[in-house]
């Protein structure tokens, strides 16, 4: 219904940005090029997908795919209760794509989180700074080549010496 019509329209209007549409577990996924995501999402929003449920990124280093990073947007249409996933591919050498904060205000903090954890830059974002990690943190933790145990930040604090001598309790 709305979903099939919309997908057909989008493939017709934007033949170049749309890479393919796949289906998995009963859901449709639309794969597009990262640079044109704003135009595609504007068209989808005008067609009835009025709610952006989730915005996140996947590092395709060992999974494979069109490019290294895929930013995925989960859209919902309240009127017909249909969902659509849109994946925008961004290469490793130039990880940046337009921000969709002008369409949905919820993209503000979620794009900051993707920047913090993956290092993907969103052009046009009003305030792209780190949100989860401290401001002086180096590196982007959720990339596949970043170690899980970190790079020694978690041992880097002063040890408190109280300056009094407490006897050990005699047990």
């Amino acid at each position: 219904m709305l979903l099939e019509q919309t997908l057909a329209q989008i493939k017709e209007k934007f033949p170049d940005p749309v890479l393919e549409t796949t289906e998995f577990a009963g859901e449709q996924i639309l794969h597009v090029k990262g640079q044109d995501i704003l135009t595609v999402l504007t068209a989808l929003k005008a067609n009835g997908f009025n709610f952006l449920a989730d915005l996140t990124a996947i590092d395709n280093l060992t999974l494979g795919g069109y490019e290294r990073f895929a930013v995925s947007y989960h859209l919902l249409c309240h009127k017909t209760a249909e969902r659509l996933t849109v994946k925008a591919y961004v290469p490793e050498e130039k990880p940046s794509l337009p921000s969709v904060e002008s369409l949905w205000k919820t993209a503000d903090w979620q794009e900051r989180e993707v920047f913090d954890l993956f290092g993907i830059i969103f052009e046009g974002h009003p305030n792209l700074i780190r949100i989860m990690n401290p401001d002086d943190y180096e590196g982007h933790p959720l990339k596949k080549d970043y170690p899980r145990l970190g790079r020694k930040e978690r041992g880097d604090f002063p040890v408190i010496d109280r300056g009094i001598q407490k006897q050990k309790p005699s047990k």
Partner: protein
Amino acid sequence: MNHDDIKSNVLTTTLESAINWGRKNSLWPMPFGTACCGIEFMAVLAARTDIARFGAEAIRFSPRQSDLLIVAGRISIKMMPVLIRIYEQMPEPKWVISMGACASSGGVFDTYSVIQGIDQFIPVDVYVPGCPPRPEGVVESLMKIQNLIDKEKLSDYALSSSK
């Protein structure tokens, strides 16, 4: 007060036991609750397990007015400077309970962002295991702090000779 001058005689032992009795029965805890252990700590304060029975009812959120710091929950690298600053603001005498597996040793979270045990940086008196510990476990830890206070001497709080 020089360390050598205070020897155990009748007057100071009675004074010590009076001071220790007063301190242990009126501990003023300061909850530093960050995560799930914070919710279990709220259950300790509520009606079924009631920590007010032990005199620890006055929960003060100001470090200057409390003497027992209860660190409940995982401490991340962004929160650790805050914890150190709050610990330093508390006046002596002070005790620290490390509640839960995450505060004691990092718990299930062996990642880039969780401190693997606050005792690497601040001195801890009692550790409470559990994820989260039962409220009865927290009450037991409070009783252990009371036992520790019982054994304290006046000369404990003399400044260490290196300073």
